[in-house]
């Protein structure tokens, strides 16, 4: 399995456990599906918790509330790409 796929799996498991998503299993989350809105249905509190999680887990500080964040958080795939390029640990 490639590193990218492994990181995506890791993020899916983190999302499920950390955000306590009931009924949802790792294989239910499609890497390309939107995390917010119609896809996984995450909300602003999840976004905040996800931001903090990236900080503790990967040492990533999200610097500004910009449209770019929407892009990083758009799907597990995008998030994995963002983590890969910005992780400090």
């Amino acid at each position: 399995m490639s590193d990218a796929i492994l990181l995506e799996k890791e993020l899916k498991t983190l999302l499920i456990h950390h955000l306590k998503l009931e009924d949802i299993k790792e294989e239910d989350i499609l890497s390309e599906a939107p995390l917010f809105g119609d896809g996984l249905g995450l909300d602003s509190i999840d976004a905040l918790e996800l931001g903090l999680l990236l900080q503790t887990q990967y040492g990533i500080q999200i610097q500004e509330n910009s449209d770019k964040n929407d892009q990083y958080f758009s799907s597990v795939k995008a998030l994995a790409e963002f983590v890969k390029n910005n992780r400090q640990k």
Partner: protein
Amino acid sequence: MLIPLNRTLSELRGTKTLVAFNGRQEFLYSDLLEKVGCFSRLLSKESIGEWVLYSKDSYLFLIGLLSIWQTGSTAVLPINIQSENLKATLKSSRGIVTDLELDIKDKPCLSLLESLSSGPSFVFKELDPDKTALLLHSSGSTGKPKVIKKTLGNLNSELLSWEELLGGKLRKTRCVSTVSHQHIYGLLHRLLWPFCSGRAFFSETIFFPPELVNLMGGTKSYCLVSGPAHLKRMGEALPPKEIKNNLRFIFSSGGPLDKNTALFYQRRFGLTPFEIYGSTETGGMAWRQRTSKADSEAWNLLEQVQIKPSNDSPKLWVSSPFIYQQHDEWWPLDDRVEILSESRFILKGRSDRTVKIEEKRLSLPELEDKLLEHQFIKEVFALSLDASHPAERDQIGIAAVLNAGGISFLNAQGRLGLIALFKKELSKYFEAVLIPRYWRFLDCLPVDEVGKTPLGQVKALFSDRSQKNAPQILMRRETADGLLKKLNVSHELRFFKGHFEHLPCVPGSVQLAWASEALRELISDEIRIKAFESVKFLNLLRPKTTFFLEIKNLETNLRFSFRIWNETLEFSKGIFLLGKVNQTKTL
């Protein structure tokens, strides 16, 4: 010095006064005057009346708000911008002033982003403080949203009373915020109060802690307007040194801040969050700052506000100049209180079915009404599942009875598919934070002797959330002599791992543990299970099986039977022998 809202434009401030800033730009009073002049000219070509106003950016919002007021109109703040809600709000309005790109055909949509050309100067007037300036929406306890009016006079009185109480402490601070100005608390505390008292505000809404940290450093002082949802989550992520050096004051409102979070901020940053208690209807009513002292739980009334208890209900009545009313009236609140003195009280929760989820107010009857409109739902009961730990979030649970169409959809598409369908429908009306996360589909809702659904029994249906080792509860009913549960074993329970790789099943010991847990719901803590008798495991209980677990009290109080079965098989049965804890010593 505080300039009243009706005179903020006619009474000139120094044109070089800083009004607002963001990461890239600063906006002076002269910039604001020019923008409001241009936008007012644009708006004066449209009809006067109610105009919906929405912008994420506080500076753009302020331009829109002042222009609406200057042209003699009233600003309407929608409760959220979910499609159906915005549609309904727009229906009764002249049009919308916004920075959103909306696809609206039948009403004028004026964009705050449009670069406006200057023209003949617009003459700013002093406004009438008694005219309705603002319409706010709030979820009413009956299930229908309420419209709340405010005059400039209402807003002025509240701003003045906060200025008298805290103006000195905030002087020369810049205001930053994690809450939106689209609701009354943010509108007053992050936008109008700073603007009227000449304090600059950060025009964006801070979301992630590093955005706040970026503003710190330097020599400027800040005040933070926030709420429990952010404060309880971001404290650990803030660096003590920078925060101590630059942050002077923290406001919290939208719900009570838990004591541990308040003490954490005191310990780490030397700042005790200043909490405000209020509502859209009443505006701010009281404040508190929690310390380790027991009496710091009490709220202190603002000087201009009066309260009295109701004679025949636990409701609270309030009178205040911040409330819109024709006469000198008392306004009823749905919060229950214990009044300690004329100016101090303790909050005891709501007396109706309105809940706060991460600072957002939700009427459970309204949520139920919207679900009942769905073609698949026969009966429904919504409840708030309190966070068991302050770090966890509050959640909404739904117990629903499906009709035949719903059941066949469930069988065909599974739980996830059905839940997604309901969530999508709800998202036309409710913000994402208020969409229920936990769903239980039942054969019937639990009912007590008088035909009401007992909250405790519904709550018990959700006791398995976050426990990966418990079966899912599909039904729970207390019977005349015990308890009956309908359960489902999902295929991911932890103990399946390693328990017969090719033939996964629920071990007998786990079935006994489930039966014991169910029994514990019926008996007091002093009674202990001494032994099992005549236990039999008759068939393998496999993953993805729906089954019943029944506990029955046998003749004497110290013997209970259990049985696990479904329509086709019996899985296990046996008898519990009980004894009192103090008796066990002699046994």
